[in-house]
């Protein structure tokens, strides 16, 4: 075994793990929280650079075929790390105002991020399981951060019990796949698999576990409750990075593990789930009164659009969508986190946003940019993402799927625009004193909004380049 090669192949993850340990050590030495904040942000930035460098390199496998690196998988890591970095940058002010600003929060974000990186690079069923669990256990802790509140503790309990339940299914699926093939490396499974009942049951259970993690209908019930009870910036982290990691792992399984003989049956299952997810997510989002719950159902709907891409094999479109989704969704959660910092006023219901557009002009404009992008209106990145995903469905001949997707996203216009109607066209209830946002916080949000616009006009990685990534690590 060549350890240096292995470590270099998984450099982003190694950097994140190391930074996490340093953060825990600093917390043990009772250093100021700002030190941990700075260290973790710097560590994630370093890992991000490593991942970007690695994404253009020749792909391969490392750690005796346990992980893949390079190209496509590394681009997934880039998205995850972007999500982590911006979550950390946005978190400091918000957590301080909720007196939740502990060093452990950053350590947990880093460990969750490490799990996601492992997940996005998994080439082996054990690494897949470990990645999912490292991510989930750290996220359970983050969900329970507001445990002194009834809603916070409830969110953590629901997330934990349902998550552990789903883990049981995932693990049983892994066991059955292992039992029917005697292999655990994804490519060897594909080579040894035959459509026996054992293998089919195993893949069904594995799919169930993954659908739970990406919040697809009918395994979505935890999403709104958990999103509502979790501190807002960390909700953004869960909604973006965790989803990206699960989708990249899902794509790795589809490309590397599913044997050609059973690919079509997987495809049809994913299509059905995609349709259900898009419809249920968008319809229930229409009646939400709480902004965070509305964004939770919208994230379910976005998982549906992403599944359209997965079903039609447009993995590069899915990757671009995940990238666009990460920046715009984090931005939206960031603005909500800003409003929530206001003392003595509950900024969770949509009605409480009445008249804020003129009171906080900059934040109003930023929120509008992110919401327009989430709708998928042309000059923004969200539009390009949706366009690529639906285009890949049309190319694969899945016209009904694309039609349902477009109709569902047309319905989504209502609930996103409703927030903006309240922002700009409704009179203020009573004057509230809004806190001033720090320069770094505002700058982060402006950067996110600017990139939402930039990547909408000029998608940096064109789809053909991304297809190159996909073939780069295919078996």
């Amino acid at each position, binding site marked *: 075994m060549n350890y240096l090669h292995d470590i270099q192949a998984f450099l982003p993850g190694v950097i994140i793990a190391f930074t996490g340990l340093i953060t825990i050590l600093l917390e043990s030495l009772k250093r100021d929280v700002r030190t941990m904040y700075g260290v973790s942000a710097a560590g994630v930035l370093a890992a991000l650079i490593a991942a970007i460098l690695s994404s253009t390199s020749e792909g391969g496998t490392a750690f005796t075929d346990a992980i893949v690196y390079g190209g496509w998988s590394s681009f997934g890591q880039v998205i995850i790390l972007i999500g982590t970095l911006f979550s950390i940058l946005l978190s400091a002010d918000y957590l301080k105002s909720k007196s939740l600003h502990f060093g452990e929060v950053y350590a947990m974000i880093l460990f969750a991020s490490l799990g996601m990186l492992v997940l996005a690079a998994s080439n082996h*069923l*054990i690494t897949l*399981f*470990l990645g999912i*669990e490292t991510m989930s*256990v750290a996220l*359970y*802790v983050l969900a*329970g951060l507001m*445990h*002194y*509140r*009834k*809603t916070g*503790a*409830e*969110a*953590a*309990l*629901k997330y*934990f*019990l349902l998550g*552990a*339940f789903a*883990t*049981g299914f995932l*693990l*049983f699926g*892994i*066991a*059955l796949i*292992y*039992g029917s093939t*005697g*292999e*655990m490396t994804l490519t060897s499974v594909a080579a040894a698999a035959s459509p026996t009942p054992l293998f089919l049951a195993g893949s069904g259970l594995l799919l169930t576990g993954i659908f739970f993690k990406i919040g697809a209908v009918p395994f979505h019930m935890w999403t*709104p*409750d958990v999103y*509502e*009870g979790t501190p807002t910036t960390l909700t953004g982290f869960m909604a973006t990075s965790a989803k990206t990691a699960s989708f990249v792992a899902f794509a790795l399984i589809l490309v590397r593990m599913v044997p050609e003989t059973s690919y079509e049956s997987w495809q049809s299952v994913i299509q059905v789930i995609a349709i259900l997810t898009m419809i249920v997510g968008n319809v*229930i989002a229409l*009646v*939400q009164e709480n902004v965070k*719950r509305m964004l939770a159902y919208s994230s379910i709907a976005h998982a549906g659009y992403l599944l359209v891409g997965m079903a039609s094999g447009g993995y590069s479109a899915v990757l671009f969508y995940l990238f666009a989704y990460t920046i715009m969704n984090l931005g939206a959660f960031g603005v909500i986190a800003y409003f929530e910092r206001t003392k003595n006023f509950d900024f969770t219901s949509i009605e409480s946003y009445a008249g804020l557009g003129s009171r906080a002009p900059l934040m109003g404009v930023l929120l509008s940019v992110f919401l327009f992008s989430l709708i998928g209106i042309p000059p923004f990145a969200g539009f390009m993402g949706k366009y690529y995903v639906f285009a890949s469905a049309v190319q694969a001949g899945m016209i009904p799927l694309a039609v349902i997707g477009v109709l569902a996203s047309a319905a989504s216009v209502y609930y996103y625009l409703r927030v903006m109607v309240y922002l700009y066209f409704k009179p203020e209830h009573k004057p509230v004193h809004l806190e001033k946002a720090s320069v770094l916080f505002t700058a982060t949000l402006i950067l996110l909004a600017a990139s939402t616009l930039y990547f909408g006009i000029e998608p940096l990685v064109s789809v053909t380049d991304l297809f190159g990534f996909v073939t780069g690590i295919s078996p």
Partner: protein
Amino acid sequence: MIGIDWYLALSAILFVIGIVGVLIRRNAIVVFMCVELMLNAVNLALLSFSAYHGDIGGMILVFFSLAVAAAEAVVGLAIIIAIFRNHLSVDILKVNLLRW
């Protein structure tokens, strides 16, 4: 000699008992115990497959699954204590503030 079928049957039965327990029990700690039962049923299946194939991979996964179950137990018990402090009960039907 006991064949692999018996181990798998036992594992499947334990797994189903776990699922049923999660679905019908109301005490959060019992629900959590049922989840652990599911994980251990899987461990049994993995070990018997591992012996059947003469391959060590399954056993290694069992190690990891045990360690993960321990980490989950730690976090889970802490969350259940937090629930108890808020509601003075661990009945999951009383944990119902968030819905729709």
